[in-house]
């Protein structure tokens, strides 16, 4: 392909500004010294980050979201590994249906999932607990874990595994020592993507979160729908920086292009 001309690069510059502007603005406003939303015109201040450190509501929500992400991503990965092996190794009747069913949360609007879970919990009377919330997140993030795990189990040769089995290894040993190390990148990448999806989930969670189980996105959403103050930009700045760090780790370990683009394959 030929090189980019002047107008292409101009378009590109404007596009990149469009993409980063809202994020940069949020981060800039977090460093204001004033009591209201404004750009830091007279020097950078950490006032709002100190205020955040004293805000128990946000800190509790942050802690809950971390725990929720860890639990739901781990459960999703544990369910996704055997399911991925089943789908990639056996040509069984119903294989397509199983795959479609396990990926289906991607096609269902989060609002619909939220309403369905709320109805389910109110009938079963198990709403409001951490584990109930965790299970809803498992449903939402499992497709991400499954897709990346599938990408590494499909096309995995089985010679070494067969060799291990014929040399007397138990099935568990063969899985743990031979198969798992070779699908590790897919499993770890899927786990991390699942964690991020759970950590960021708002729309479904807003329906099932109770005062005792308010996640960080829900707490932020509730705050923003009342008033936007510098505190919320400080929270957002912490999230943006945290996500960037996770992205770097993900890029080193699995390759971010593989996570974001190759995930469908």
């Amino acid at each position, binding site marked *: 392909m030929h090189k980019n001309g002047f107008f292409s690069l101009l*378009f590109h510059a404007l596009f990149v500004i469009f993409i980063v502007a*809202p994020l940069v603005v949020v981060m800039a406003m977090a460093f204001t010294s004033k009591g209201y939303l404004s750009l830091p015109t007279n020097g950078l201040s950490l006032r709002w980050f100190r205020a955040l450190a004293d805000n128990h509501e946000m800190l509790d929500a942050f802690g809950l979201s971390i725990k929720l992400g860890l639990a739901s991503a781990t459960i999703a990965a544990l369910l996704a590994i055997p399911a991925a092996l089943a789908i990639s190794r056996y040509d069984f009747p119903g294989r397509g249906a199983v795959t479609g069913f396990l990926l289906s949360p991607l096609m269902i609007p989060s609002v619909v999932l939220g*309403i369905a879970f709320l109805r389910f919990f109110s009938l079963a009377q198990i709403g409001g607990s951490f584990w109930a919330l965790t299970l809803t997140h498992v449903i939402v993030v499992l497709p991400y874990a499954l897709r990346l795990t599938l990408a590494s189990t499909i096309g995995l040769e089985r010679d070494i595994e067969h060799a291990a089995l014929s040399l007397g290894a138990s099935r568990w040993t063969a899985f743990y020592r031979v198969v798992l190390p070779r699908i590790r990148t897919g499993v770890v990448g899927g786990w991390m993507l699942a964690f991020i999806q759970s950590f960021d989930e708002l729309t479904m969670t807003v329906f099932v979160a109770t005062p005792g189980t308010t996640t960080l996105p829900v707490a932020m959403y509730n705050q923003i729908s009342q008033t936007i103050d510098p505190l919320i930009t400080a929270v957002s700045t912490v999230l943006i920086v945290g996500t960037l760090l996770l992205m770097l780790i993900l890029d080193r370990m699995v390759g971010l292009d593989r996570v974001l*683009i190759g995930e469908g394959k």
Partner: protein
Amino acid sequence: MARYDAERVGVAPWLLSGPALLVFIALLLAPLLLTAVLSLNLFSDTDGVVPSYSLGNYLEVFRDDYFHEIFLRTGGMALAVTVLCVLLGIPETIIIARMAPRWRSLFLLVVLGPLLISVVVRTLGWAILLGNNGLINDALQALGITEQPVKMLFTQVGVVIALTHVLVPFMVIAVWATLQRLDLQVEWAGLSLGASRLTVFRRIILPQIMPGVLSGSIIVFALAASAFATPAIIGGRRLKVVATAAYDEFLGTLNWPLGAAIAMLLLLANLIIILGCSKLAERRFKQVFE
């Protein structure tokens, strides 16, 4: 662990996928079916959910102008977002593809990275930019383009801009995937045979990336039509879309059966768009490419 060394198909795949399937049947299929049943129930202000069955809620949605407006507005905004994502996403993806590998991976990160950042944070950025005292209005007034602030927050235009920002990475991903399979030599072939750059783009590049553009459009439209956080924050309470209307029925007026009916219609529309358009696109492009 099950017998996954057995080559013949037996119960092994079911044992392996069983745990995930059981969780999905209990916690996805059952809640969805219960919601479908709920949408057939009636609601009374005094008794709450009445366990009788009718299509009353659906008829109400179909008859009421209030809901017509919400569904039309949602569809219109989703369409506008899709068009904008096509117009912005295709050129940007091609520009990135033409860059040297170093720049290419950097800008791919810049453009796709926001996907991993919370939608609440990205929407907050637009709420700050679009407000009457926001940066865009400050800049417009400082440059003397307008005297009064232009109202963008709590308008459809504002929601469309913010949703385009949130969803354009999906278009880039879809176009990028097809662009990777494209043989770049054909562009040179076209040019050396005397075609103009525009002709080369229109007759050679565009037809080949069309499947990606279509699948990207389907994803963007479906996500825009069911978006919640961005229309809720940028659109405010009064500019309702289907998702926020369902939310209000559930957590505001507490008319659960009506909210469930809206949710079922949203789900149905979503599935028709995703599955229907994919089938259509597949059939059409089979003829072109095979």
